[in-house]
């Protein structure tokens, strides 16, 4: 480390703070930028500055947005009687890619994780409940789809939400769990296979 000039070390250290970036990758990124043209570097600086200045959380669904309410919440052609609950903004992108879902979203910004100190108060749950209360100017929400991750924490979060939401008279559904398309039954572990069997449907 002592071999590099101080500004280079500083840049490497900043990269190392990013998730999934170790020392070697940080070094690679720093040296890429050292070789890049000033214009390329400026574009990166400008892009970072712009997201930090312009992107906020939607005051209704907590999605990342440059306008508030976001383009989903503010879109009259979307189905306002359905809310799909996801853990992170990038999960929403995965659902949008299917082009099958036309309702609204709600981003929790995480899942219950006691070992990391994340309980219900650390998630955007209260604002979800607020959205289910009848409002004069909006159609009533009829269904909440729980699309938290298919792992222990995502399941516990879905079960928690379901117990909380059902008494409010809304239909609560959970996304199906099972085998990834394009895989082979031979390689499925028994838990995934068990979930796939319980979630089977009539043909």
């Amino acid at each position, binding site marked *: 480390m002592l071999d590099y000039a101080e500004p280079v070390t500083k840049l490497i250290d900043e990269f190392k703070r990013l998730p*999934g970036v*170790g020392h070697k990758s940080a070094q690679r990124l720093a040296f890429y930028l050292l070789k890049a043209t000033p214009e390329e570097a400026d574009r990166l600086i400008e892009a970072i500055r712009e997201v930090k200045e312009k992107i906020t959380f939607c005051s209704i669904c907590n999605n990342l947005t440059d306008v508030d309410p976001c383009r989903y919440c503010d879109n009259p052609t979307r189905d306002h009687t359905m809310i799909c609950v996801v853990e992170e903004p990038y999960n929403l992108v995965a659902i949008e890619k299917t082009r099958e879902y036309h309702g609204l979203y709600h981003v929790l910004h995480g899942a*219950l*994780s*006691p*070992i*990391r*100190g994340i*309980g*219900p*108060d650390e998630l955007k749950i209260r604002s979800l409940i607020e959205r289910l209360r009848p409002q004069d100017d909006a159609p009533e929400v009829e269904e909440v789809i729980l699309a938290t991750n298919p*792992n*222990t*924490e995502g*399941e*516990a*979060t879905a*079960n*928690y939400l379901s*117990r909380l939401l059902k008494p409010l008279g809304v239909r609560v559904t959970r996304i199906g769990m099972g085998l*990834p398309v*394009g*895989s082979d039954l031979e*390689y*499925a*572990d*028994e*838990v*995934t296979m*068990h979930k796939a069997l319980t979630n089977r449907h009539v043909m």
Partner: protein
Amino acid sequence: MPLRDTEAFVLRSYTLKEADKICVFLTRDAGKIRGVAHGARKLKSKYGASLEPFTEVSLHYFEQENRDLVSINNCEIIRSQFADTISSERLAALHYLSELLMEFLPDHEPNETIYRLVGAALKSLRQTGDDPSLLLRYCEVWILKLAGFFPDWRRCAECERELPMNVPVWLSADGAPQCANCSNQRGDALTSETRMLVNDILRMPPEKFVAQIFDPRALTKLESIVARLIKNTLERELKSYEMLGRLRSL
């Protein structure tokens, strides 16, 4: 690089880089170890549900020379917690148990008793429904005891005199049991109900223990004694401890 295989419980897994996970295992043969599971975050990963907390697995791994981290070769499910409904209370109990084991067990020290305790405790967790508190008291006492942090209440820590059930006992600030003489009757007085409770924990298997009914005051007392022992030992509270209370009150 020798290939090893052993039975193990997954205690925790962290994401590492884009596609990998680091997992902490409680193994039967090698105690607590950490390993890398390459590609475990991918949708079509060969690990599937096997790295979820407290899955019991048959683990095959390579030891890497001069490295603390082992490389996971293969991991097959023996028993999974995921087949049952995972309520938030259950998640909190699993995380608390995992944090206790991660904090109090040394790395690379096999301990058959602890391994069997975890297996039996997970079985009993099914019995307890949404209130696992009895089982958690059971596990706390045993894990602390096996890790050498739960004092023997049957003897005065000062004068080593025996302390039968009918003799009053006081706990000093650091949790050491003392007779009337040595403590000057100062400190935390233990009721015989609390002492009986710990006695029962130490002589009953978990499935029998969680089927009993105990004095709620003794249970609360034991909970606070253990919480203090943990805080004294680690110089902090366990993160999941506070969450147990918050998720219990739902």
